[in-house]
């Protein structure tokens, strides 16, 4: 990552940015950490490895303005840039406000996978990749100001198939009662820590519905009723927006398969609304603020 570090230094040096949001080595084996480089020597700590799982774009949202101290550059994988696109689409960010240091990426590690140093240099085996990487088609970022890492050929994929979508189809295939029990087993475990929303770059509301008690749409208690309401509301709010960075799923301490919910919604949007996929452009209006007069209404009598 020589070039990444030197470019970073350059940007800091000529003061074209105040801070570079990137990754640095973590304190524990197999961990990396989000890192803010303000000085040239900070820049020497910047790295990019398959262990750089975090979607750093959350630091571009307003609640982190306090640490920016000026213009921002960010180290972003193709998938992270999809989030940036949605943030732009939703008026949370202007493209010019951020310098994108795109990194080409062949996949990052799945949660709880710890690589030996050897593996770090070698190609990452599929079974150790995060599931989002299986269906990734932006290995080389679509939009960036500077690109690092030898260009990886972006895979041509059939959207909404393979990887997580096979699992989505599994659940789709279940009988109604089966589905209900499946989800209840999972939601039962939810401890309402809301880590899922806190880590999601698209949950940027100042005041979340869960923090409103008048009326109490989402009950605060971690019982199934409250948990079901919360998880459904969350999936609904991310429908047509989620770019499948998988952070919510990664951080959930209760191991609830949140990717399933979000990607079901992604798949639905793709199927129902002319192949819409969030994060691939910034111009088109998202499905929920637009419509077609001939949208399907088979379910309405």
């Amino acid at each position, binding site marked *: 990552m020589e070039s990444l570090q030197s470019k970073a230094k350059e940007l800091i040096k000529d003061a074209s940015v105040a801070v570079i949001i990137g990754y640095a080595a973590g*304190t*524990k084996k197999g961990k990396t950490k*989000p890192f803010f480089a303000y000085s040239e020597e900070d820049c020497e700590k910047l790295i990019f490895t398959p262990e750089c799982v975090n979607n750093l774009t959350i630091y571009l949202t307003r609640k982190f303005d306090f640490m920016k101290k000026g213009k921002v550059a960010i180290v972003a994988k193709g998938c992270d840039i999809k989030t940036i696109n949605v943030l732009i689409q939703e008026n949370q960010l202007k493209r010019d406000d951020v310098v994108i240091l795109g990194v080409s990426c062949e996949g990052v590690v799945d949660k709880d996978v710890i690589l030996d140093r050897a593996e770090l240099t070698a190609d990452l085996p599929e079974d150790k990749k995060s599931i989002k990487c299986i269906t990734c088609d932006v290995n080389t970022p679509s939009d960036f100001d500077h690109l690092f890492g030898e260009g990886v050929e972006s895979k041509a994929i059939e959207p909404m198939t393979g990887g997580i979508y096979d699992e989505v189809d599994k659940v789709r295939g279940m009988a109604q009662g089966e589905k209900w029990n499946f989800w209840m087993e999972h939601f039962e475990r939810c401890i309402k820590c809301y*880590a899922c929303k806190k880590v999601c770059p698209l949950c940027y509301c100042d005041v979340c519905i869960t*923090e409103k008690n008048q009326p*109490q749409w989402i009950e605060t*208690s*971690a019982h199934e009723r409250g948990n079901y309401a919360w998880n459904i509301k969350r999936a609904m709010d991310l429908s047509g927006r989620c770019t499948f960075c998988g*952070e919510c799923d990664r*951080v959930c301490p209760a191991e609830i398969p949140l990717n399933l919910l979000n990607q079901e919604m992604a798949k639905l949007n793709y199927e129902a609304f002319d192949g819409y996929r969030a994060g691939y452009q910034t111009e088109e209006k998202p499905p929920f603020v637009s419509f077609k007069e001939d949208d399907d209404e088979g379910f309405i009598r």
Partner: protein
Amino acid sequence: MTLKLLKEDGLKKLIEALNKADTRVVGPKRNKAGMVTYDDVNADTELELDEVIGRYSPKDAFFPQHETVMRYKLDGKDVHVKAETPVIKETVLLGVRPCDAAAMISLNKVFTWDYVDTLFTERQKKATIISLACNNADESCFCTSVGFAPDGTEGSDILLKKIKSGGYLAELITKEGEAFATTHKSIFENAPAKADTVAIAEPTKLDIDIDRIKSWLDDKEKSWEHPLWEQLAAKCVGCGGCTFVCPTCHCFDIVDEPYGDQGKRVKNWDGCQFDHFTLHASGHNPREHQPQRWRNRFSCKFKIYPDRFEKKGCVGCGRCIRVCPVNLDITEAMTEITQIAK
């Protein structure tokens, strides 16, 4: 201190006995998602005693994440209110780790500090804690760096140590422990003169001096606005995972949940890492950003706890490190401060 012996089938027998006595047994157990948590066990085969430590702390047994404190019902113009008095069973925490056992003492201080939270104390009174000394530690364990030990006895009534040839050596620490062993004398047999126990784990000893840390924190001039907080915690996304898995975090929130013309007042875990934790009605938030919130959590462990309860607020279980999505490592802060405070 008396030593006893649990034969290989000791735990099996013990659990059977406790089940018979309708005693609730809580121990490390793998749940459907494949993670180990402390939950009701009905057979020794369910126990996951080799797991370094459970994902959550067992504090839930005394301080449930969600409990009702009272109920109300509108009846015409009046309201009926009824305090919640749950049935609390005799409970045995079996196979919890010494650090968690120690944490229960710290927790007790909080819940008995000014107002005595009977919901907590009742549960604690009725509980016997049989902890299990650690034979292995992982990278995140740091009990030894904060003055605890993998075979520490604080908070346990009985401490088990694994015997190489099978079975456990049981140290009866408290008189409750003694009593418990007597009740189950058939299971707690007399220990041999010498039992060859499995080596106790040795977590990495970090260059940490908690007294120095405290004195630094006491010196608000130095510590309060120190850039360190932002350097370390600006990246914190405030998910609060640390507070939920922490064995000594104890904050909770009280809300009403209406249902038609009735409802209940519930007590739910809360955490100082959430942005609304200190939000005033005015809209002002004294802890505006994550670094300030994290400074609070840190100070809570190493200053407020000692000051108020003469107790340590951190037992070094390392859960907050394991669960953190942005690798915000409390030991990193402790080592750095130890340096600064030199």
